[in-house]
């Protein structure tokens, strides 16, 4: 038990640091650091999404960039229709574009959930290494589709000239947008925490440990895994929606297999199956990129070396180093 308490306290401390840093930066008139923290927050959310499938369910998806991109494009496409005042479709009924984040988020979550449902339903027929390669291949398929489909910019991507609106906030101010993203991240983390302890979360972890036993209890492991995969895709899609607004731009790069790899890297850097693992991992990643990127053109080499060292020698990631091992694994 004491170890659990340590991780719990550590999580609260991490949440406070992630909130406090940008606040200090804001009052020190360093808006760029606020923007950097926003980026870390959003990437963390994408990692939290993957962590539901990977950490809790043991589903090693190498194609989560697809959901990130689909969520981003949902926002990009609707916002571009809002800019031009052209409806998205007119028959059988009219769908107009919008610039309201709440609506955009809902659409992004639904669309990426749908994508996860289709991809998951097919991919979960397999397991292990097949699953890794198939999720990668499906993400690649969507990536090529986005590049070749000319209607929304193809390879050039799609610009959102003005950041979308949220009631009561000026989203163009870096701090306002950061606080919004931070709030979303915390809400999702709380929901995941609740879910882990609830029936569904228990069943999911049981499936990871012993599928046969779950099946013997009369539950369908396939359905449980599919549900987890869809929820996971939805959260990552929501992160994609926020990322679209952060950059005011979406492009197929959001779906590239490198990004799928990076989302996984967040989890391993922070610690697999830890609630705050992806948060720590994403922050470390952004800091690393920022610090080394300005020193050497070859910073990706050192990123690779650091990642390799963590995988080989520090399997618990950052949280594992600080808070000790998970109680049962």
């Amino acid at each position: 038990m004491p170890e659990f308490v340590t991780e719990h306290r550590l999580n609260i401390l991490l949440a406070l640091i992630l909130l406090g840093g940008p606040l200090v930066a804001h009052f020190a008139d360093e808006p760029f650091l606020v923007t950097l923290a926003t980026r870390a927050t959003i990437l963390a959310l994408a990692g939290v999404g993957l962590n539901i499938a990977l950490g809790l369910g043991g589903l090693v998806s190498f194609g989560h960039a697809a959901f990130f991109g689909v969520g981003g494009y949902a926002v990009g496409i609707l916002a571009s229709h809002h800019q031009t005042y052209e409806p998205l479709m007119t028959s059988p009924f009219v769908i107009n574009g919008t610039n309201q984040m709440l609506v955009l988020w809902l659409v992004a979550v639904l669309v990426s959930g749908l994508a996860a449902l289709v991809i998951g339903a097919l991919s979960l027929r397999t397991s292990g290494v097949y699953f890794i390669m198939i999720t990668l291949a499906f993400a690649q398929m969507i990536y090529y589709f986005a590049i070749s489909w000319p209607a929304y910019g193809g390879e050039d991507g799609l610009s959102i000239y003005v950041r979308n609106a949220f009631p009561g906030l000026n989203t163009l101010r870096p701090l306002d947008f950061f606080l919004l993203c931070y709030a979303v991240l915390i809400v999702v983390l709380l929901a995941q925490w609740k879910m882990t302890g609830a029936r569904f979360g228990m069943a999911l972890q049981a499936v990871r440990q012993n599928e046969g036993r779950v099946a013997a209890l009369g539950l369908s492991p396939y359905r449980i895994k599919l549900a987890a995969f869809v929820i996971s895709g939805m959260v990552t899609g929501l992160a994609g929606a926020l990322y679209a607004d952060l950059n005011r731009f979406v492009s197929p790069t959001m779906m590239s297999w490198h990004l799928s790899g990076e989302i996984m890297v967040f989890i391993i850097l922070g610690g697999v199956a830890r609630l705050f693992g992806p948060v720590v991992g994403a922050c470390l990643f952004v800091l690393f990129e920022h610090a080394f990127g300005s020193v050497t053109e070859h910073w990706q080499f050192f990123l690779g070396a650091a990642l390799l060292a963590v995988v080989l020698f520090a399997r618990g990631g950052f949280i594992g180093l600080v808070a000790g091992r998970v109680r049962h694994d």
Partner: protein
Amino acid sequence: MKKTVMSLAAAASLLAGVSMAAAEPVKVGMITTLSGGGASLGIDVRDGFELALKQSGRTDIELIVEDDAQKPDLAVQLADKLIQSDKVDIMTGIIWSNLAMAVVPGAVAQGKIYLSPNAGPSALAGAGCNENYFNVAWQNDNLHEGMGAYATTAGFKKSFILAPNYPAGKDALTGFKRFFKGEVVKEIYTQLGQTDYAAEIAEIRASGADSVFFFLPGGMGIAFMKQYAGAGVDVPLLGPAFSFDQNILQAVGDAALGVKNTSQWSKDIDNETNKAFVESYQAAYGRLPSLYSSQGFDTANLLISAMDAAPISDKDAFRAALKAANFKSTRGDFKFGSNNHPVQDIYVREVVKEGDVFTNKLIGVALEDHADAYAADCKM
């Protein structure tokens, strides 16, 4: 934050009233591609730009260079950093149209002046034009239009045309067709990043065309030309300069010899500025300049000419000074059209071998004082 910047600007303009206009320092943020497959283009732009700064001997220009690795999302972050953290006055450097579309609209909306040394997407030339956006290279369609015009005068009647399936590829084929009066036998869109063109070459062989126009930037063009030579098809190739720049030619080798291509610049354009530029560039970097180097060089000289004429704090005067384009370009004549895009000659070049080095030789002019097709849509 905004307030501080404004008061700084106000203080600066007060100072400017007292001292010489030229003494006011200017901070330039350059976002360009220095790593990844497209790095050679960004390196050339940067080197050309830095060469011009060095030759001017000025100490009042601070240049901050950032590498975008050809990733649009990274470019956007770097733009945020340059604007919010480094507080630059001028931005430049972007190579790719998709990165330009991600960065430029936001930057100019925040009042930064952007000088494009390479990308010229049609959206920024037409309805999306902006008084803070100046293109020192070309509008994307220009070189392709030049090739369309050349193919017509050279007497080609049936052309087979291909480009990657993405917006700049579509602009390329549209630009070619705008000026080509013959028949387009077949139009093919290939996959972006495709490296095997066996299928397309087979179709070319079977098509009965008398010329092939292709726009395949970077590694795609290298692969295409080598495979084309190996297939033994003898239909002449035509293309824009992008597939025949100094770096790519060395990789393609003999396969490119004799190919005609269109460019707004060539190393043997006969004027003093250009001669001095080619010589000093070779001396400084040990290689021949490419068209990208010349664009970087011209961009820096345009900036310097504007700084000589007006202080950066007086945005209107500074913009007017940029628009006057009162500098000696490596291209000879250079002026801006109503949408801040170049009005310039488009030349035809031929690939030749000089000693061990493959390079281009000027053989004629395709279009004189050519402007772009989108200027009419620009309401500025």
